[in-house]
């Protein structure tokens, strides 16, 4: 088992992690950083969103009411409005408050009913404490972004195939960056508030799903369009009563389905986005669903709940396995590229667990693969304590690097949030090896991270910092070759560079040649079959074919 004690010490103040090369992490000062990145790789966009540049709106819907003159509507109108806005509770509240206009018995009885309702909901809330939170707090609690409510960059998503990404900002706008085009479309929508997650649809160039406070939005941003402000008509609104706030979304790797989760709703929604219809998959235990992750081979979905319980759904017939945890809820999880392993972390524990899925019907128990309990490092600037609870996990698409975002302690200066990167090895046994810490500029803490889905030379980790900066840290290495998991493999992109060398250089030509070869043999075969040849000839030609059959297919 790997622990933090095996890691190299964190960098001194003023140094930032630049990249991994020749098996070690290189560092430099901030100025080097930009220089080196712009010269070496294509991903030169170091984005910077200073907090001051964002126009934040601090008003909420309810507070705007006070700005208007006192209204003198009739009781009926107010009741109708209260019913529309706040449902039964709102109506009862309105009646109770306007006790001068209604008969006494009505106001008293509605007050009594209201108290009863509140008592009942508090009882329900004591069973599932998260239900009493406001939706903003709930988003902050269950988001994969560290300190979400105060973060300038609230969500980030690379496109699974093309070189572009979407960034959701604190002012509820989403910007799409594409290094190849000069326009950066900005997406704004009336319903796009408190964005908790964004994700691009696989097998598609344009669709971007956004998890908002009250609904799901699916934007269709035409990549060829020159418009910088796509109209809100480009967005599909998917909503279901009771299914808000949406804290997590996940597209199926085949791009056909979208699942969404809300801590308030015990059902997980499976959306057919094109027809805007959904199938609720309801399981009552747990009190909601907080985090979803679809395995890259599209066979399983991880769904964690606010209670000490998570589920693993299998996606053929949509049945689930229950996995009770001992201490807390499942905070984060990620799948290996072939979908056979699930790494997850539990709130309140400082370890990473692994679950292995194979041909046998389900694993029996989770094993601990890494211990991240607090470790003190002596650096030039004094002692730094690293370790603690894990906020999120991210595994690169080749399955070679695992990034772990450690929460740290925001109050203590010597216990910063930090990203620890592991090397992963599957042979002969699955294990994690230390690689190093990724650090940014002084004073900047990592908030969220994501690996580039198809980086050609290894892995590319994109980190969003608390300063509002987004940087990319490349890890250059030669992959040991990903296990090719066939069709079910989600974005089973051809990656000639990552194949073993003897295989890589011939892939294109062999396929071409064998295609030609196949045409010839098929043609020849067609003739021989149609002509009335004696059976011996035919069987010989068959043998011929099987000899000349391209073996590398």
């Amino acid at each position, binding site marked *: 088992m790997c622990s933090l004690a095996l890691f190299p010490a964190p960098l001194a103040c003023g140094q930032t992690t630049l990249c991994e090369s020749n098996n070690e992490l290189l560092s430099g000062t901030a100025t080097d950083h930009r220089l080196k990145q712009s010269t070496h790789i294509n991903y030169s966009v170091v984005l910077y969103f200073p907090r001051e540049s964002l126009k934040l709106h601090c008003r909420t819907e309810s507070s705007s009411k006070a700005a208007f003159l006192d209204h003198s509507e009739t009781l009926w109108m107010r009741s109708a409005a209260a019913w529309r806005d706040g449902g039964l509770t709102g109506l009862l509240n309105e009646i109770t408050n306007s006790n001068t206009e209604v008969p006494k018995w009505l106001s008293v009885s509605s007050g009594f009913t209201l108290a009863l309702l509140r008592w009942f909901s508090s009882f329900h809330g004591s069973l599932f404490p998260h239900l009493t939170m406001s939706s903003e707090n709930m988003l902050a609690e269950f988001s994969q972004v560290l300190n979400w409510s105060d973060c300038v960059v609230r969500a980030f998503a690379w496109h699974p195939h093309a070189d572009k990404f979407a960034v959701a900002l604190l002012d509820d706008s989403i910007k799409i960056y594409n290094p190849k085009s000069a326009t950066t479309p900005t997406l704004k929508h009336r319903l796009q508030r408190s964005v908790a997650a964004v994700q691009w649809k696989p097998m598609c160039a344009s669709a971007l799903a956004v998890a908002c406070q009250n609904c799901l939005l699916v934007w269709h941003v035409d990549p060829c369009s020159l418009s910088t402000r796509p109209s809100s008509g480009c967005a599909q609104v998917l909503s279901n009563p009771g299914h808000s706030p949406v804290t997590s979304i996940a597209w199926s790797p085949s791009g056909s389905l979208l699942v969404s989760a809300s801590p308030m709703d015990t059902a997980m929604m499976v959306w057919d986005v094109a027809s805007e219809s959904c199938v609720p998959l309801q399981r009552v235990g747990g009190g909601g669903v907080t985090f979803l992750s679809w395995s890259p081979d599209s066979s399983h979905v991880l769904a964690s709940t606010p209670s000490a319980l998570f589920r693993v759904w299998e996606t053929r017939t949509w049945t689930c396995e229950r996995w009770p945890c001992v201490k807390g809820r499942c905070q984060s999880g990620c799948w290996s590229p072939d979908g056979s392993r699930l790494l997850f972390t539990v709130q309140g524990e400082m370890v990473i667990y692994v679950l292995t899925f194979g041909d046998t019907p389900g694993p029996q128990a989770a094993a601990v693969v890494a211990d991240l309990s607090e470790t003190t490092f002596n650096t030039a600037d004094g002692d730094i304590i690293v370790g603690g609870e894990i906020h999120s996990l991210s595994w690169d698409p080749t399955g070679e690097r695992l990034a772990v975002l450690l929460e740290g302690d925001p109050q203590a200066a010597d216990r910063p949030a930090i990203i620890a990167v592991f090397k992963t090895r599957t042979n002969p046994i699955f294990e994690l090896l230390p690689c190093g810490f990724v650090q940014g500029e002084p004073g900047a803490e990592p908030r969220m991270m994501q690996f580039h889905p198809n980086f050609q030379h290894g892995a590319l980790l994109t980190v969003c910092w608390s300063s509002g900066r987004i940087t990319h840290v490349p890890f250059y290495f030669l992959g040991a070759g990903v296990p090719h998991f066939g069709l079910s493999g989600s974005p*089973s992109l051809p990656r000639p560079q990552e194949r073993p060398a003897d295989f890589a250089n011939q892939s294109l030509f062999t396929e071409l040649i064998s295609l030609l070869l196949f045409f010839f043999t098929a043609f020849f075969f067609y003739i021989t079959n149609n002509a009335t040849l004696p059976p011996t000839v035919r069987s010989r030609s068959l043998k011929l074919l099987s000899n000349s059959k391209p073996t590398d297919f």
Partner: protein
Amino acid sequence: ILDLVNNQCWNRVVCWRAVASIAWAVLLLLPITAVFVILSRFSLLHPIQTFSGQSLCSFAIFSLILMCGVIIMVGFLNLEYYTVIPTIACSKIALLGQLLHPRQFVNSLAHCIMGIIVAWCCAVTLGGRYETIGYPCTQGDGTDSSPQMCLNEYHLILLLAGAFVGFSHSLLAVISNINYVSFHTVQQYKYLRFKGSLPFVVKCSAAQALYSVRNYIVVYFFLGYIPKAWICKTLNLHLNSSVHPLDSIAGLLDLSLLYHQWISASFLLFTWNITLLLFRIFVTEFLALQDVALLSQHSPSRRCEVFSLSQPGGHPHNWNAISKECLSLLADLTQRLVAYHDTVATNGRAKSLSTGSERKTSSETSFTSATEDLMSPRPTLLLRTPASVFARFVVGTPHSPLTAPFTPDLDSPFASPALRRLTAPLDQCSPWFGTVQSPHIMRRAPKLWSTSTGERRLMEDVRSLGSNGHLKLPEASSQALFADSQAHIWALEGLSYLVQASFSEDQFGVIQTTLPSILGCMLILQEAVDRHFKLPHASSKPVRSASGMGDSTYKTLRFALRATLKTAIYRITTTFGNHLNAVQMSAEHRKRLQQFLEYKE
């Protein structure tokens, strides 16, 4: 002949599934009735009395048997009327025509009668003042003391409520296409699906019952005296003048009566809707094209069979058959779209001419042409399914897509030998696997229109009325065009998954021979779909209405098809990447494909 055998086989499978669903519905009747009894006797002031022992009289058992009969009848009607290709009325007149059709009339009548029977059962179960239709009374003021039978209006009002609810249910069924069976986006076990949709059925039954009872009360208030007088006359009953009549405001505002009406109507609708739900769940279990889509996605061993060569001979028969059927299905859709687009493009000039000329031709003997534009105002193939049924009926020869482009032989994709071979080890006609190769379910086109001459004339009139324009329902023609697109969606998914898998699994290069034609077919279809969505109304989203048991999936099938098509092409391009440059295709297609390769579509 094989086709015929298959058809019989499929029919048998559907029948068995329907029987199983009906059996479950009958079994569920007992607990539903128990809940009904408890709810109907619930009294707010004496909650304990609700559960006090009530002796099961022979009437109750008899009524239960009657209810079983009704459930079986409902199940039979479901089986008889269900369709996977919805009938989409392209104009309001056409909708009216549907509602007034004799077959629909028979259906409504059957529902009325069943409603009365269920209501009678409810009345017997409720007991008390509802139990019998007549009761002995003494008329007058004591001088004439001869015992007479008087009409029990409470019983009557309940029976009529049953009839009304049954009738309105059957009408709503037509309007909301309740007989349309759609396919779920995700596969779930039957029990889980049932459990998941049970609350929804309860909710929508209760709501529908509420609206029906409201309407019924209004009708009874104004017209209630007619059936009352009629019943009195035929059954020789008297009206008790000492009892307050119910078709008055005071009589109808009896809360207990309202509650009992509502709960009876809910019970009635709930049992019927449950039967329908079970039928849908059982019948949509597995189908061939769906199976191709699923196997191509989930089962490597069965994919391997697709990619294999035949021994001896070395032909990829399995793959050839699958790809041929799927491609012909897609090509057919393309043709349909192109033809539709052409007619719409020439609409302004051609319409006035065509209406007149067709009147002439249809009165002649050219039967097919008359039926082809039977329901649609335009001489297109909007509702070519009935046409194809007729055409087959009349001509008696199978069509190939070439000879009759607008009447695709919907049977062929499913009767293909390859699919059969894939599942050959399995029992052909077992309820579980027989279906895999032959979803002749697709064939059950809406058979609402029979071929009598009078009707044809009627439809002609309807057509000319509808073409006036203002009676047309917008976007309905677009919906009708894509009504059977579930099959195309499965074909696209199946093909694209197989091609994707072939990149690593296809040992003999079987797929590569057909790759150009697959890509070409998909790109042409993509172009046609794109063009179609540029038409007015085609891209407007239908209003989402989640109420009622009617399934509105068919309204959004065109969007689903568009999304699936794009995803399918991307699935192939992302898998093969730049290798696709080695595939032979026309320059135009290559340009189009390049857009996909650069993620610019």
